[in-house]
Structures are given as C-alpha cells and as structure tokens.
C-alpha cells in the first residue's frame, strides 16, 4: 500500500488542529473535474468530523492536460502567502469553469489582494518551485491521478465519495484512539 513519503509539516496548507486524530491529505488539481466533485465531499467530511480531522491540500497540477492548473495553484499559493489560501482554494474550485488569467485577477480582487502583485508573481514564476515540490512529493508517494487522498499517511484507493471516505476516516479515528489508549 502506498504511503505518504513526505510527512505533513508547517509548510503545508492545513485546516483543523495539528493534534487531530485523523489527517486527510488531498493531492489535487484545480482544473480537474474529479477534484471539483470531491470539493464539497471534503467540506461535508470536515463538518462531520469537526475537531477530529485535519485537512491538508497539496498541489498536483497536470500541466499538459490542464493548461490553467499550474497558474491556478500558483494563484492559491500567492493567496496563501497573504494568509488567504483556503479562501482562494474554495473560490478556484467554485469557479472552475472560468479558470484562467482573468478569473485569477478577479478572485485576487475579491480577496483584497493586489492584482498587479499576482500578475508579477505569475510572470516571474515566483511560486513555481513550491507547487512543483508538492507535485514531486505526490509522485514519490504514489499519487497516480487526482484527486488522491491519504488518510493518516495511507493512500485511499477506493472511491472518493462521502460514504466511503466517512467509513475509512472513522476506522482511522478508531485506530488512533486505540493506539493513544495503549
């Protein structure tokens, strides 16, 4: 079974407590329709598990297949540098059908970030290395498409629908509680 080779760290985009019983890592691509479908599922999962769950998003843009995926990831990273990663993450998925330069600037404006600064960062490839590092860590961990989920470090190979994720996260939480009690 494939395992997450690069552990979650303070470098990652995280939602939820760092000592949560379960960490769900998603390798995703903002232009991937399956990631778009997974987006509300993850929200429901987060709501369901509350404080028990920490969610981490890592970039896995398939650049040749999805021409806007890399720039979208860099836009999210730009927002992250200004403390607004999750807001941008959500907006990118919610507006996936309009992904592209104009949308990136519009969303920056919406989040009160500087559009010229974003343009410059995209032109300079300022966040390129960070996005590629995520991609590379995903490849090493056996990510073979998007979205790929890891639950407490183990790749989830089943369907990414709500009931399946619920079940495996429940099991992982159970195991975590048992080992904490040992």
């Amino acid at each position, binding site marked *: *079974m*494939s395992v997450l080779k690069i552990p979650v760290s303070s470098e990652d985009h995280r939602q939820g407590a760092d000592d949560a019983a379960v960490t769900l890592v998603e390798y995703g691509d903002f232009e991937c329709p399956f990631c778009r479908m997974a987006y509300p599922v993850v929200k429901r999962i987060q709501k369901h598990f509350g404080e028990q769950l920490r969610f981490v998003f890592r970039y896995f843009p398939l*650049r040749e*297949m999805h021409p806007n995926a890399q720039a979208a990831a860099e836009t999210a990273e730009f927002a992250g540098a200004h403390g607004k990663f999750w807001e941008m993450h959500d907006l990118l998925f919610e507006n996936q059908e309009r992904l592209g330069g104009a949308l990136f600037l519009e969303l920056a404006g919406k989040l009160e970030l500087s559009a010229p600064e974003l343009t410059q960062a995209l032109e300079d490839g300022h966040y390129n290395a960070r996005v590629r590092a995520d*991609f590379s860590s995903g490849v090493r961990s056996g990510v073979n498409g998007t979205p790929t989920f890891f639950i407490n470090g183990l790749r989830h190979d089943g369907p990414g629908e709500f009931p399946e994720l619920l079940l495996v996260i429940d099991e992982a939480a159970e195991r975590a509680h048992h080992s904490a009690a040992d």
Partner: protein
Amino acid sequence: MSDTQGTEVTGLLAPGTKAPEFRLQFAPHETFSLSELRGKAVILAFYPADWSPTCGDQIGLYNEVLPEFEKLGAELLGISVDGPWCHKAFAEARHLHFRLLADFEPKGAVAREYGVYRGADGISERALFVIDKEGIITWSYLSPIRVNPGADGILEALEKLPK
C-alpha cells in the same frame, strides 16, 4: 506502489536479464531501436492501448514526471500494440513529449519477448521495466491491468542505479 501489489506472471522478465533488443516504428516511417539508448538508463512502459482511460492517466502522469526521469538520466519509452498513426494522434492529442513505440507487426512480438503479452486479449500487460546503461533489466513490475501503477516504483529503481 509496492512490489507485492502486482500479479505474479511467470513470463515477466526478471532483474538481471539482458533486455531483448527490438526495432519498432515510433512514428509513421520512423523506426527506433533499444540499442540506440545504450549508455543511458531506459524506462520501458508497456501499456494495453492508446486512448483507454487508465492508460491515459498513466501516460499523462509520466508525461508530467518526465523532467524527473530526465534528471535521473533516464529516457522513457511507451510501448503498445497500437500502430504508429494511432500513436501519432494520441501523442498529439495529449501533448506527449516522449516516444510511443508501435509493437504492431508482428503484433505484440516485443511484448511476448518481455513476457507481458496477453494472448487472449491481443494486447500487452501494463508492465514496467527499468534497464540500465549496459542494457540489463534492473527492475520489472507487472501492474493489475486496470490500475495505474504511478511513477514511484520507477523513480526508486532509477535511484538505485549506479551513477
């Protein structure tokens, strides 16, 4: 991906074996032989068919990982029983930046030599080989046919090659 996940097939050429030489078309009227890459590590990725969804993911993934393969000094070759015109259309549609070889006539001959031909289906298995610069197989892996084997196993095998 781990080595225990794939199905064991008696025929799959094992590490230590000399990689059988071949000469195949990779584009209409252009042929390529394995020995042209002697002195370089080679990744040979057998896959069942152009256009089928899982292959698309696998081939698409390798296309993205290409810079990492190159950094490790390796060249990737895709190989299936599809003809060169089919490969050409597929490579253009997916913006592929590596060669797809046509194991087309006689059909599957190279796949047979590597022990990865599925006679009943008339296609090759989904199988991976890493070949060192002397032309010796150092790693091979047979994936369940519907499962995209990812690239982690290849990268690990490439890293184990002597520099």
